[in-house]
């Protein structure tokens, strides 16, 4: 499923990033990699999607809805 479709507080694993190269470089630089486990902190259509990278115990990253629709994730049970 797409990152933009994940509900609040759900934990998912990043499967694929199909954004353009510049966005992909920025995501990688911010420490978001394939197989990273992330938690969705806020996903409402009034603001960008806020995620926290659990594998890295990292800061939160805000991702615009357009880009979140190009990131493939799977639920981590």
């Amino acid at each position: 499923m797409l990152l933009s479709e994940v509900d609040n507080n759900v934990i998912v694993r990043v499967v694929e990033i199909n954004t353009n190269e510049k966005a992909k470089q920025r995501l990688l630089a911010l420490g978001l990699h394939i197989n990273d486990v992330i938690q969705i902190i806020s996903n409402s259509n009034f603001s960008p999607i806020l995620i926290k990278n659990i594998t890295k115990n990292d800061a939160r990253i805000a991702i615009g809805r357009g880009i979140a629709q190009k990131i493939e994730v799977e639920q981590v049970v």
Partner: protein
Amino acid sequence: MQELLLGVELPKKLKSSKLYKTVALVGQPNSGKSTLFNVLSDIKVSTANFAGTTVEYKETNINLFGNTVHLIDLPGLYSLNPVEMGEFLTLKFLIENEVDLIINVIDSTLITRSLELTIELLELGIPIVTALNMNDEAQKKGIHINEKKLSEFLGVEVVKISALYGKGINNLLEIVHSSLIYGSVKPNPIKFTHHIDEWINKIQNELYIEINSNINPRFWAIKLLENPEIVPKFVKISANEILEKSKIDIIDKHKTELFEAFAYERHHHSMEISHKTTKYISHFKMPFIERLDLLLLKPPTSFIFGIFFLLAYFFLIFYIGGWIASALEDPLQSLTPIYEGIKNFSPLLWIITDGIYQGISGAIGIVLPYFLPLLILTAILEETGYLARVAFILDNIFHKIGLHGKSVAPFIMGFGCTVPAVYATRIIESRRDRLLASVLLNFIPCSARLTVIFALTTALTGPIWAIVILAYVLVAIGFTGKLLSLFLPKPLGMIMEIPQLRFPTFGVIIKKTLYKVKDFFKVAFPFLILGSIILSILDYYKVTNFINSLLQPFISGLLDLPKELGSTLIFGFLRKELAVLMTSQAFGITNLSELPLTITQVVVYIVFIIFYLPCISTSAVFWKEFGWRHLLLTVVVGLALSTFSAVLFKVILTTFFI
């Protein structure tokens, strides 16, 4: 990308000094570099803070155990593959200058991600000392890093510090001193997986570097594969087919883009190192700060807090600004008689001195009072990290006008003065967003224009019209943005780190504000003085009525305004609030309420003044920052918007109201 790097010039002054050793602070944004810089620069020999071409550098000489060291705080970057303007400059600086030592500042609470940059910095071959900053916060979060082990893995000195509380600074300075004096060993970069490393070594042997630089040739071999666009011309490769063969082989084995393969390798190393050196002891319960942060970020509470803070922000600015302005009014006015004597000596000289005095009293009496509280409040917003939250909240609204949240900071600054706001657009990554943001920025009513609105509406039409006009201004900015963004490529979506909420440190806020005020006096102030001198000379030679008749067909014909207002538009270009002062002079009255204008005429006049031209200081900064073509676009869009809005208001008001 290549031309972007070439298009970036370092400020001429910014060369690493030949006499002293150069130490550069390099780290990811929000890792506390500036705080560390401020702490280190307290033991300073001399400071020379200056605005770089695109991003402000902070540079100073510090006294380190007797010898002077040249310390530079470079813009933060996430990786040596630059995406943002600031990152280009840091990379370019590190490549082109003799940097003797890098202090790699790391936010210890984000150790894993920060190590990815550290691993990349090792490849540069410049000696490094790693400073694990915010050590106290990491401990509070149950993160314990074994710096001895980390030092072994990275092959560089590692020291724990807390710049905010000044802890561990002496230890850091001793290590920096010893590595500068005894020369620390060049770091040995971490090996990639076998077959990639083989290719790198093969490429490295074929490399021919024209100028001697302290950059490890291996770095160029890696970048030729990973990000060839940033490899400068002085790096040549004799046998090109090796490069091609290696690219094909790596892509074949990794099934991904080259830059992804390298990014993944460094990510893997940093994970491995951080697992072996960092223990997450207590799983901390959500501290109060994080629960508060969720309220500030998650809708709907985020909007409630957002509106509250925005209102408080403006109320404080106008309350404090108004108070300072009135407090300064009498002393400034009382100074006028001093140079009264020159009048009978030579009227022209008097006019010029009066012009200079008006310029100074205008800047200090009108612009500065609103500018100072705005700078302090904006610095607080930045220091606490709340500005990133505002960008997060407003991102959707900004998207509708073709921008994204990150351009919030310049827009908020724009309410104070457009000049610092134009500098603030440097944090916006893509040039496209930056150009659009700067055009729209021009229409944000600066403190001078707000003075015009409030002065005229309170004197003649009542505050209601001020709100109507301000509402119209925001709508107009939205539409213009929407319209302009149709001609521009699609905006890059928002990808932004939301830093920790932190208590602001008083010292950093004061330093930031003083730095910006000094910048304002260096750039905008001279133009304010120049503007008033030109104005007083024009006035002296009675050029004003010539201008009035020149603009008469436009002013009276199209806008139904009395022709005397024509010349005020010229003065408005020099300084916006002068338009108001000139209206009273144009009609030979002292009190604004005696102006012979109907409500419609006042509203039409204000609306036109807000949009028509950027003031002279803004135009100068635009020219310097974006080039004359962009300035011309802004002027054309401004004139079109101002004429359209003025006529629109005239038509509506005359039909429905008076």
